[in-house]
């Protein structure tokens, strides 16, 4: 075990995987000598050179399309889109091409690529640089969607994604890059996709959370403890595949559920989890399923406005109390 940051875990996993597969390449804006818009690829260009750490123009359709073209001819690709908000610019390549090529060709072509991008607010970056758009891509069959919440998961989930053989959209919260944690030294360390993680056990309510909201949920759980409420925090880790068993198992125990996403609740993953509980877990429930997410407006710039719109531990606590009422 070594202590590293969320960003360092991603960088080292990329480095290790690129050493194992001499054809795996990264393509994105400023990923080369500049080190990536967020700094994730710093130092990789020096080791792997121009064509495996490839600076691209600010042309997201070309970046993702280039990755797809390589992938379908057997060369794994890891494109980087610096802000998840820019997925809109290349959505056709993601949702109509990467997601569907294997299916449309009757399985003739594999699309082994992991699209790394960022998500999230609390940075006063305003409406076009703060969104959490995982529901957009999770909706489309043919894409796997991953959202780590801690350095060890970032490493293990990224390795699993790169080796998955299918298109994966990998969301990294911009506000978590500096988060430190223990990461196994094992260069084969993997966290399988589709396996949720109980990050804090509890008995009275299940807080199902994703990405950075896992940390806000744990903070809420600590506050709840002082009020005599034992909250279990379940980190989904991947949205596709979704670990439905873990959700149902936890709620069967706690009989109450709150779902926390940084994205808007409306038509989001929280709605999916609530629907799952309504379909298959109704007998377990002793109260309503509550959702906490961004309020349904664009993410505003000014700090008090953004703080009001995005989830907070206080809102999670309130939602838990409503669920238990």
């Amino acid at each position: 075990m070594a202590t590293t940051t969320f960003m360092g875990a991603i960088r080292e996993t990329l480095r290790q995987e690129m050493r194992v597969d001499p054809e795996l390449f990264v393509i994105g804006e400023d990923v080369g000598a500049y080190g990536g818009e967020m700094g994730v690829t710093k130092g990789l260009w020096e080791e792997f050179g121009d064509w495996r750490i490839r600076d691209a123009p600010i042309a997201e359709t070309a970046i993702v399309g280039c990755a797809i073209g390589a992938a379908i001819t057997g060369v794994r690709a890891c494109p980087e889109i610096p802000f998840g908000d820019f997925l809109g610019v290349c959505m056709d390549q993601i949702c109509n091409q990467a997601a569907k090529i294997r299916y449309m060709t009757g399985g003739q072509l594999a699309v082994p690529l992991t699209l790394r991008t960022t998500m999230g607010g609390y940075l006063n970056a305003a409406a076009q640089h703060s969104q959490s758009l995982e529901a957009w891509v999770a909706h489309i069959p043919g894409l796997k969607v991953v959202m780590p919440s801690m350095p060890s998961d970032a490493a293990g989930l990224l390795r699993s994604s790169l080796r998955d053989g299918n298109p994966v959209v990998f969301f990294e919260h911009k506000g978590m890059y500096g988060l430190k944690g223990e990461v196994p030294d094992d260069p084969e360390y993997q966290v399988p996709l589709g396996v949720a993680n109980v990050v804090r056990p509890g008995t009275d309510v299940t807080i199902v959370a994703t990405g950075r909201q896992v940390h806000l949920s744990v903070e809420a759980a600590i506050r709840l403890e002082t009020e005599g409420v034992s909250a279990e925090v379940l980190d989904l880790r991947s949205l596709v595949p979704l670990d439905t068993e873990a959700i149902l198992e936890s709620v069967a125990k706690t009989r109450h559920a709150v779902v926390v996403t940084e994205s808007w609740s409306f038509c989001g993953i929280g709605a999916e989890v609530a629907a799952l509980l309504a379909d298959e877990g109704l007998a377990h429930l002793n109260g309503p399923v509550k959702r906490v997410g961004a309020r349904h407006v664009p993410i505003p710039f000014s700090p008090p406005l953004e703080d009001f719109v995005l989830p907070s531990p206080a809102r999670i606590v309130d939602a838990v109390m409503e669920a238990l009422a």
Partner: protein
Amino acid sequence: MTQSEVEPRVPEATELTLLYKQMVLLRKFDERVGELFRRAKLPGFVHLYIGEEAIATGVCAVLRVDDYITSTHRGHGHYIAKGGDVKACMAELYGKEAGCCRGKGGSLHVADTSVGMLGANGIVAASLPIAVGAAYAAAKVRKTDQVVAAFFGDGATNEGAFHEAANLAGAWKLPVVFVCENNYYGVGTRLGAVSASESLVERAGAYGMRALALDGNDLLAVRAAAREAVERARAGEGPTFLECRTWRHRAHSEGEQPNYWQEEERNEWLGRDPLPRFAERLVSDGVLTEHDVSEIDAVAVARIDEAVAYAEAQPLPAEADALLDVFGPAWPVGS
């Protein structure tokens, strides 16, 4: 003519005959598809390549089996010209389990990766960045000398994806041949009504590409231009843009009633139909006789008959097949 004068022409004559046979096969295939569509034998929609056969035939004639092509919604001709399995293509159009895409893709998505045909594509211009990526992987990562020919229409050159792809190919001198099939209409809209110029070759120059416009209904002109483009691409000299000016004889999509053509222009183009034009040339050069020409027609028709019979005899896919091929197995990594 003495024997010594004739002999060196034999291989070329054989090749010209094969090229003609190929064009006829493309024509007969899509003529039959149109007929089957009208008889409601085929589900969905079909976009026919009739009139444009010289382009796919001329370009694919100079490609190797391990070279790649990407295609469009009008892709049957590209598929067959690259050497794709004709029976499997027909079965795909019928939605059969034995189709090249197991009935999952249909006319808009025919693909035969065993011959480097990476797929027809239902989104205009979307295949161009993908073609560039295949070329990138070949030239810069795997370090092979494979070439990618990307087919697309005039309409695609107004899409952002075209410009992004062309820019990348030009910036990195990637081995891509951009084969623009300019038939002057994007569905029913005239190119000149929505573009500053109908001369698309002008656009390619901005991306540092060699670019030339040519008569896309002249098989040998297409082959010659494609040969040079492919040789340059293979030698690492970068992409070429070929604006192949042509005409689609049929509606954008079968069943549509075109009201947008100007009759005089249309007739002029129909008079330049690449098939009779090439046949006449081969006959006048003594490569083929009139009898050979009709024999080639008959052989192609018989081959299509066979493909149709095969496709009709195949079972439809089982419902459960709909749930397969969404995801595949893990990628083999390490030793």
